[in-house]
């Protein structure tokens, strides 16, 4: 899983916002966008694309699926370089996009929708509806599909033509827990078959249990990228230890920063160590407590999740983590003429 299947190099894009004046009714100004995005996705990997609202996640997926043209940069899929997928049909043939919440309407049926798209895709529908769990609804009017069913149909459209790269924008929205589980299973199966998958989602818990790695976007830039475990380690997020016990007075025995303590017969203490909690350090502390009359019965290193990574890197949460914000502010371009 080391070969780069999807390689993005220096991808930049700015939205053009209409700003008509009397002298120039078609005048546009540059708005937010993406700045110098570069990353590699290994073949058969599942990568989470996360970031706060307006970070540029959907814009990036639109560039990768040929809905928009980048201002600069390139996209390389399986060693084939594409400058602008919007103009290069052969490139779009390799990419499948499931957009964010499509509202399927009308009297057409899922079967007809896929047939129509297969004409554009020059591919066969096959058993796609069965694959996404819509085999009993193939001839049902789109108006009668629930949100979750619509999501399944959107997924089926993304899978048309067996794309090498699958882009999923908020795929879990509207899915019930069973369908979410099924989607994760399907995604994993596709990845195991060699499809490289990029998923943008706000449901971080769902994402964390699925993805191999994450790309965190903020203000249109890649703030951090890599395997979740490595990111946590680098950000030193696994640095809080929760200790519970009885007897003795543990506070004088602890040299690290105590961020919370409650001693009332039984005791409960949260201890922070900037360098994290290695097994050795943990054993040493527990041993020290035991030797001095304290009986610890609960030891837990609090595990940071994806939302902690998001907070730590963007500083958005305001829970004392803003000092970790890694956005290069000098690069945060303001809107310009």
């Amino acid at each position, binding site marked *: 899983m080391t070969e780069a299947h999807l390689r993005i190099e220096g991808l930049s894009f700015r939205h053009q916002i209409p700003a008509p004046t009397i002298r120039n009714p078609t005048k546009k100004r540059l708005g937010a966008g993406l700045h110098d995005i570069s990353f590699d996705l290994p073949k058969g990997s599942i990568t989470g694309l996360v970031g706060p609202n307006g970070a540029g996640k959907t814009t990036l997926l*639109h560039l990768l*699926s*040929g*809905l*928009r043209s980048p201002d600069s940069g390139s996209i390389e899929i399986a060693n084939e370089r594409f400058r602008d997928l*919007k103009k290069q*049909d*052969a*490139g*779009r*043939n390799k*990419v*499948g*996009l499931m*957009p*964010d*919440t*499509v*509202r*399927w*309407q*009308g*009297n*057409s049926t899922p079967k*007809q929708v896929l*047939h*129509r*798209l297969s*004409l*554009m*895709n*020059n591919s066969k529908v096959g058993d796609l509806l069965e694959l996404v769990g819509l085999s009993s609804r193939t001839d049902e009017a789109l108006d009668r599909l629930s949100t979750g069913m619509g999501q399944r149909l*959107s997924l089926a*459209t*993304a899978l*048309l*033509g067996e794309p090498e790269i699958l882009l999923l924008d908020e795929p879990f929205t509207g899915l019930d827990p069973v369908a979410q589980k099924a989607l994760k299973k399907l995604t994993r199966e596709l990845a195991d078959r060699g499809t490289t998958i990029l998923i943008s989602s706000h449901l971080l818990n769902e994402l964390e249990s699925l993805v191999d790695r994450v790309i965190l976007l903020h203000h249109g830039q890649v703030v951090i990228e890599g395997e979740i475990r490595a990111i946590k380690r680098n950000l030193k997020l696994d640095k809080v230890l929760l200790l519970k016990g009885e007897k003795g007075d543990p506070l004088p025995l602890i040299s690290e920063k105590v961020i919370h303590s409650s001693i009332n017969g039984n005791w409960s203490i949260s201890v922070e160590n900037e360098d994290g909690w290695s097994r050795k350090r943990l054993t040493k502390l527990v041993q020290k407590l035991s030797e001095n009359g304290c009986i610890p019965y609960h030891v837990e290193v609090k595990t940071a999740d994806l939302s902690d990574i998001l907070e730590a890197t963007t500083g958005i949460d305001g829970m004392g983590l803003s000092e970790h914000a890694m956005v290069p502010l000098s690069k945060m371009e303001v809107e310009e003429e």
Partner: protein
Amino acid sequence: MNPILALAFDDAWSKARSTRMIILLPLLTLFILGACWGLSDPDATLPSSISANTPFEVLFVASLFILLSSTLGVVLFGFDGISKDRISGVLAIQLSQPMARRSLALSMLLGTLLPVLIPTLLLSILGIILIKVQMGEWPNFADIALFLGATTLLLFWYATIQMYASSLAKDMGSSISLGIGAWLLFTMVWLLVTVLLASAFGVDATDTSNADFEEFSAKVDLLSPNGVYHLLLEMRVGDDISRTISPFWVVTSAVGWTVLPLWAYIRRFQKMGA
């Protein structure tokens, strides 16, 4: 089958089974067959300004009814031809498919045109049969070809305008406004535009039947698809029409109306984001 045509027929078939078609088809039937039958009735008394003494003259007058009904049909199918898919998010899926945008744009245009064009042409042919029944003679082949060809062009122009307008619209309100607005401009308000322009250019517009105004209106009509449609038909009507404008300008304008909006629409479609 060519994917553009396959998609267009698929789209047209879907529209042919829609509620909009249930509304449109009786209208087309009443307007086109009713006009052909009524205008060709030897016992019918028409206003003195309307001359329908030959089969082609009947078709010429019946074209007014096509202008009202069939063009409205194109508006019905085309005003949200792109905007609906854009608002619902389906357009993003379509544009991400590996089909050239030009081809997709053409297939969507044809998908809007065909569900109106096919019934209009079939009803026009039935109308011609009704004229034969009433008047005992057929329009000659060139007349029929010109009538059907000009009608096809008219609907094509409207379909292109509607799809272009729909590609501009970002919500359903602006979609309806642009679609109906374009139709109202050319179908209902054009005479007012002509009068205003005539006044601005010093042409007497107090009497719309005077020769100067008719000459002027023929020129202004080159700027309207309805006007060009009628000018095309007028080329075969003969002496009953007092407007004289060179066929060269009429044909040039027809070519312009065919090429320019199509170019603008495809260009817009190629640039469009989802």
